């Protein structure tokens, strides 16, 4: 119908149009399919005042989310804080800095709750009763939790070396968690075969065009929270490379709909771990093809995708917006996690350490202008990757419950306070 908000899908390479169906690639050239909206119809109802009148979740941008009916899964997702990070800004030597904190997303503490809410709402519309995913950890927990809340059966496939918090954090929901020997890319290939063979709704395989659109909500929220403007720089962690493109797409959609106070002049920056850097390597070497990494080796396991599906488009975006990409080693990742926790009281997972450390590096390189506004996207929670910190924190030695032992540990109390204490 002409007035439908979501018109169908379109191949990003050849432009061939497809109806709304569970299919992730163009059957002519294997190019990625992307959801097509009727922006004229969207503009009729998606105004600033309409958005502000709605609950603080991803669904306040409902017209730009690719479902036809009302959302049925992940009703409370999104609306995470954009924290003005003055203490961290000072530590990094820049003027204006914000943390988009998806470490506290609902219900599973990562940005994946956004994409899963959309993918599973769409899965229900398509009539799927079994859903699944290939995951480096966060997606596993989010699919498992949201599927159980929606009464869907779920199959979650993961590499067999993931952090305990991520494995238990998927199993608890009753999902069928399948550990696969090998790395994420091998898990992903298996899922591509399973999804179509079994006719299941795999959020990041056959439902991927819809799933990926959920990431736009992070960009919408950033622009709205900044007073309907976009920042000068955004730094985004990259695994498959989809999120960075969707945040930018969100900015451009708001611009197209006349919702912003000025044009989008944001430079997009991508962050990876040096132990798995196929996308940053493409940007830094100005290559045309993304060279996959056969054996990713980093503590940032949630970013350990050696063959990123959106690597090509992410690289292109960073070049075209005047941004850049960098990667950091494991020690820098831990330093990044500590810096964010110590300055802003936010405990992020290893991927957040990557993003923080890369931001620092880009500022030092002059790629990020110290006078501009910068948003750092924190996509996951540190409670899930505690293993990475083992050996990096002071070892605790218990004291007896006596003042003598306490003073021996921290030093004597200042004289003035002693006097007060005796009153």
């Amino acid at each position, binding site marked *: 119908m002409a007035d439908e908000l979501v018109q169908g899908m379109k191949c990003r390479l050849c432009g061939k149009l497809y109806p709304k169906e569970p299919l992730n690639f163009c059957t002519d050239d294997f190019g990625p399919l992307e959801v097509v909206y009727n922006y004229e119809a969207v503009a009729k109802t998606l105004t600033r005042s309409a958005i502000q009148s709605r609950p603080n979740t991803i669904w306040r941008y409902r017209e730009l989310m690719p479902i036809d009916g009302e959302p049925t899964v992940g009703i409370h997702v999104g609306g995470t804080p954009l924290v003005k990070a003055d203490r961290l800004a000072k530590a990094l030597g820049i003027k204006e800095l914000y943390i988009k904190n998806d470490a506290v997303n609902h219900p599973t503490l990562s940005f994946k709750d956004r994409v899963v809410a959309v993918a599973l709402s769409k899965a229900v519309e398509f009539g799927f009763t079994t859903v699944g995913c290939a995951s480096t950890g966060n997606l596993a927990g989010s699919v498992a939790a949201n599927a159980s809340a929606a009464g869907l059966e779920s199959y979650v496939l993961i590499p067999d070396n993931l952090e305990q918090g991520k494995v238990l954090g998927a199993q608890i929901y009753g999902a069928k968690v399948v550990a696969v020997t090998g790395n994420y890319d091998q898990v992903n290939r298996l899922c591509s075969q399973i999804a179509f063979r079994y006719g299941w709704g795999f959020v990041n395989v056959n439902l991927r065009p819809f799933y990926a659109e959920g990431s736009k909500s992070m960009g919408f929220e950033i622009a709205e929270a900044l007073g309907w403007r976009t920042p000068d720089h955004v730094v985004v962690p990259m695994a498959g490379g989809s999120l960075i493109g969707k945040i930018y797409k969100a900015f451009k959609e708001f611009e197209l709909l006349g919702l912003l106070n000025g044009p989008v002049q944001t430079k997009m920056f991508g962050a990876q771990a040096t132990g798995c850097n196929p996308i940053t390597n493409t940007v830094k070497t100005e290559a045309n093809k993304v060279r996959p990494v*056969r054996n990713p080796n980093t503590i940032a396991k949630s970013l350990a995708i050696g063959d990123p599906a959106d690597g090509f488009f992410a690289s292109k975006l960073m070049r075209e917006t005047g941004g850049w990409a960098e990667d950091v080693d494991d020690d820098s990742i831990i330093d990044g996690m500590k810096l964010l926790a110590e300055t802003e009281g936010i405990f992020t997972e290893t991927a957040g350490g990557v993003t923080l450390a890369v931001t620092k590096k880009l500022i030092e390189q002059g790629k990020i202008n110290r006078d501009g506004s910068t948003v750092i996207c924190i996509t996951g929670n540190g409670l899930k990757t505690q293993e990475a910190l083992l050996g990096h924190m002071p070892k605790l030695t218990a004291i007896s419950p006596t003042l003598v032992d306490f003073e021996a540990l921290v030093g004597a109390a200042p004289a003035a306070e002693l006097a007060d204490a005796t009153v």
Partner: protein
Amino acid sequence: MPVVRIPTPLRPHTDGQDSVESTGTTVGEVLGNVGTKYPALKERIFDDAGELRRFVNVYLNNEDIRYLDDLATAVAANDEVSIIPAVAGG
């Protein structure tokens, strides 16, 4: 004979078969020979220059051929060549 696995959405181009037997001693030959029999499949996996398209991944058994010798990777009689859409995951 080596077998080529066809992704479900492309099976209309192979008379509905999920795998097709082929001949050849390299991945390039094996895919080329399947392509001769099913020209509609060939134009979908190779571009005009005869290169694999950007979003087509090819595996020999369990290994991505980009980590082997690409299309020159040697194929034995009982090997399986899989065509896998690259646009997944993340």
